[in-house]
């Protein structure tokens, strides 16, 4: 007589199990199949094509009612099993209690509903089964309806693409910094985001849902950052949890999933498990390939044959048309690992292989996944690839010496892209000149004026030459930003603007960085270039800043910080001094020092105390002195004509005006100014980045001094008659420097490169351009003339920096 086998859950795993059992021995068991859903096995992974309209439910049924009947499987659908009685060996649902000899739990997973206010409103749904798909399709019939998908993983993105196909306005919220962060690295995540955005899907990364709003039905989703997205439906695709409730109640061993051994036996005799609900060797499984292997193993176990489940590497693909991605194995970096990265910005292709001991252990690909299977095979087999290493990334069809094209970025620029900003020369102009016979940098310079002025575009001009002339033209050697790229600082800056690159991952992808996320040298440079190019638009990346700029204080040798409030033009008041003294007492500041920049430094403040001391200083009207910034530092002044018998103008007043106009700005390196009331120069204007010396007839604006590692006297930029013009020229010069200099170059280095004459052309002789530069500076200042201390002391910005994640010193002290 055959034994009685009950299977709970008619999902992908149990479907395969039943097939294997029946294939091997149709008479071994008398099978009863329970399913909570009112239907039998269907191909769950094809729900996305059903949602997008490419398939219907009928197309994805794997086991029909007839099939169950023919194979003598008793089905009880639309009824969840609610109890397992392992002593009596029965299971019960609402209207059945049935006994078993062997029991298989195949309950799959339950969607994880994030615990926010509003999660129970009508219109909030998961994405797990056919009913969910039907609900989504119903919602999409309302014209112009809005859908918000929470979760930018595999499921969420498939849901988003399907809903978009159905004509909804779709927004995806994802908590990590890039999409599909479990499968992809940031570069591939960036490409994916880009193609989804091209489809019209809004993607909000680092989007933390605060609440779902609505009375009875959902109306909108509110994020922690205050953004609100209107919503007719909210699809929760924030993850899944093994469905273990039955097993828990029955007292089986459950960790994250129902624990099984290699043979798929649970902790209880005669109870087995298969599918997403189980945990094997601390591992959960959420893709069908390993579940099918489990099903095969369990079929053997049930038939009394020895079998063991051994997980193999699996790969992921996203079933969204136009988003071609592949990820397999372990793609994180590590000390003993090396990576090979290939980027083709023109085609939007990104490939990355992770190697360990000459074996491929992981692969991520976007845009061209044709070789995915070949790499997966290599990962599985673990074969030594040393012999083919050089050409490995090009895949199995590699034949010729095809190589990553260093000229791709320039090749991709449209003909009207401006290469030389000074003279308004486009790529097309340069190519026309080349066609007309100009075949050297100098010839191009002479005939088009490209690179004839500041010269920072000569690298790009050279690339256009090389692209057009091939080997006939040899590019002069130049310094690259760092080992992560072949481009120079000048090239990078220009390409960021020309190509409209607005995030660091975008720049790294489009400019073909050869590391996955840069290094401590290029990241701060890129961050600055973005800050300068896209004021108001670019989201500053604190993690790409050196610690001083991240926490707005100077780190000391013992890990404490120094705090320097602004003292505008070196002027202070008794109240400010009292507040500084009080703060020094209150926070046990070990050293209070007068700096070389005419202000007061509180040295040795604990990091955790920073927001509090800033709060106190803010309360007395003081703001950050940015003594830590690659940005505007101090404006030193002398007493000037208000008090001094030689003073010709109000140097103190002008210094204060300039500092108030310019504070908060970031630049390639620090920028220090001084204003002296007469040529006796008590404010040391002649060794500053920009110094002003007041004379009877006006203001001499001097630039390019240095008094640090190098010592250099300033040179005269121009003399102007009024304070207003002095301020405008100062701002224009600063902006020209901000837009042009390479990261970490003080103005004197930049001037040596571009020449003072060119600078004079730009901001002394050309008054219109001076005004435009100064306007651009003013525009940017709207966003940056903000006290970073107040943001942190009163608005909680970056609170994570100043509080520990956990504190066991207090616990243990008890």
């Amino acid at each position, binding site marked *: 007589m055959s034994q009685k086998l009950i299977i709970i859950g008619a999902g992908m795993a149990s479907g395969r199990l039943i097939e294997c059992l029946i294939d091997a021995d149709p008479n071994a068991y008398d099978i009863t199949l329970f399913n909570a859903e009112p239907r039998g096995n269907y191909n769950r992974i094809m729900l996305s094509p059903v949602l997008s309209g490419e398939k219907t439910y009928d197309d994805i049924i794997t086991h029909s009612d007839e099939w169950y009947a023919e194979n003598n499987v008793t089905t009880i659908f639309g009824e969840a099993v609610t109890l397992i009685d392992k002593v009596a060996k029965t299971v019960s649902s609402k209207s059945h209690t049935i006994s078993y000899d062997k029991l298989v739990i195949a309950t799959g997973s339950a969607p994880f509903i994030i615990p926010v206010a509003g999660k129970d409103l009508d219109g909030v749904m998961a994405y797990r089964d056919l009913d969910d798909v039907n609900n989504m399709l119903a919602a999409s019939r309302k014209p112009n309806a809005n859908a918000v998908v929470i979760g930018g993983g595999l499921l969420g993105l498939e849901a988003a693409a399907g809903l978009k196909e159905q004509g909804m306005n779709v927004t995806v919220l994802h*908590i*990590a*910094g*890039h999409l599909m*962060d*479990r499968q992809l*690295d*940031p570069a591939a995540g960036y490409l994916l985001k880009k193609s989804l955005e091209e489809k019209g899907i809004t993607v909000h990364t*680092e989007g*933390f849902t605060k609440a779902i709003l609505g009375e009875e039905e959902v109306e909108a989703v509110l994020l922690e950052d205050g953004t609100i997205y209107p919503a007719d439906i909210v699809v929760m695709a924030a*993850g899944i*949890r093994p469905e273990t409730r039955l097993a828990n109640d029955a007292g089986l061993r459950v960790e*994250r999933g129902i624990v099984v051994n290699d043979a798929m036996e649970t902790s209880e005799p005669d109870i087995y498990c298969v599918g997403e609900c189980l945990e094997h060797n601390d591992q959960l499984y959420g893709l069908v390939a390993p579940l099918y292997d489990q099903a095969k193993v369990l079929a053997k176990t049930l038939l009394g044959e020895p079998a063991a489940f051994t997980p193999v590497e699996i790969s992921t693909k996203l079933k969204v048309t136009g988003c071609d991605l592949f990820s397999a194995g372990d*793609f*994180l*970096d*590590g*000390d003993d690992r090396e990576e090979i990265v290939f980027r083709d910005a023109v085609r939007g292709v990104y490939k990355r292989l992770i190697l360990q001991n000459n074996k491929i252990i992981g692969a991520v690909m976007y845009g061209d996944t044709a070789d995915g299977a070949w790499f997966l095979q290599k990962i599985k087999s673990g074969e030594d690839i040393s012999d083919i290493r050089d050409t490995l990334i090009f895949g199995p069809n590699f034949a010729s010496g095809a190589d990553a094209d260093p000229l791709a970025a320039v090749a991709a620029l449209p003909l009207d892209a401006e290469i030389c900003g000074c003279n308004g020369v486009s790529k097309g102009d340069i190519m026309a000149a080349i066609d007309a016979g100009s075949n050297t940098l100098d010839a191009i310079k002479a005939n088009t004026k490209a690179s004839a002025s500041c010269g920072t575009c000569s690298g790009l001009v050279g690339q256009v030459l090389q692209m057009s002339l091939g080997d006939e033209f040899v590019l002069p050697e130049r310094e690259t930003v760092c080992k992560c790229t072949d481009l120079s600082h000048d090239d990078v800056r220009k390409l960021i603007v020309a190509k409209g690159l607005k995030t660091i991952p975008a720049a790294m992808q489009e400019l073909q960085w050869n*590391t*996955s*996320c*840069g*290094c*401590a040298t290029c*990241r*701060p440079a890129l961050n600055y270039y973005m800050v300068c190019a896209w004021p108001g638009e670019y989201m500053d990346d*604190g*993690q*790409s*800043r*050196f*610690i001083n700029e*991240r*926490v707005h204080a100077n*780190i000391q*040798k*013992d*890990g404490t910080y120094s705090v320097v409030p602004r003292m505008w033009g070196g002027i202070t008041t008794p109240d400010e001094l009292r507040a500084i003294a009080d703060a020094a007492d209150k926070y046990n500041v070990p050293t209070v020092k007068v700096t070389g920049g005419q202000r007061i430094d509180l040295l040795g403040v604990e*990091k955790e105390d920073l927001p509090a001391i800033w709060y106190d200083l803010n309360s007395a009207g003081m703001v950050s002195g940015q003594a830590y910034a690659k940005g505007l530092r101090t404006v030193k002044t002398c007493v000037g004509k208000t008090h001094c018998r030689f003073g010709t103008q109000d140097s103190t007043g002008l210094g204060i005006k300039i500092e108030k106009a310019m504070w908060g700005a970031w630049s390639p390196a620090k920028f220090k100014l001084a204003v002296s009331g007469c040529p006796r120069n008590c404010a040391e204007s002649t060794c500053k980045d920009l110094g002003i010396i007041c004379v009877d007839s006006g203001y001499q604006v001097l630039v390019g001094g240095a008094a640090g590692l190098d010592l250099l006297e300033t040179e005269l930029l121009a003399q102007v008659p009024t304070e207003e013009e002095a301020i405008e020229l100062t701002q224009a010069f600063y902006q020209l420097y901000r837009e042009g200099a390479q990261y970490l170059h003080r103005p004197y280095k930049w001037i040596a490169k571009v020449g003072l004459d060119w600078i004079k052309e730009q901001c002394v002789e050309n008054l219109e351009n001076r005004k435009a530069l100064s306007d651009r500076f003013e525009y940017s200042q709207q966003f940056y003339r903000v006290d970073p201390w107040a943001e942190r002391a009163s608005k909680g910005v970056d609170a*994570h*920096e100043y*509080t*520990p*994640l*956990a*504190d*066991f*010193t207090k616990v*243990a*002290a008890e």
Partner: protein
Amino acid sequence: MSNYIDIGAVTDIPIRAARLVKTMHGCIAVFRTATDKVYALDDKCPHKGGPLSNGIQHDESITCPLHNWVFDLNTGMAKGADEGSVRTYDIKLDNGRILINSDAIARAEAAE
């Protein structure tokens, strides 16, 4: 068997940032990488004691804020020409929660 202590959600640490776990005998820096891996290392550079949690993270390395030594987060070993290593601690992620091996805290306490 070792126990793990829940010290917070992975999202409590911004991407590529680090936060501290204070113990009786020093701070442990907990790092979150761009690919959502977590690492725990002593917050003390073997060179001159720089607080590593304040450095710049890139891939799975951290550059010390004081003099730019670079350490591998996986092993705690200095990279390149510099020699030295930082103690690492057993830490893992489970459903978005960061779990640190309780030995990490106990060890620090037993150290005296």
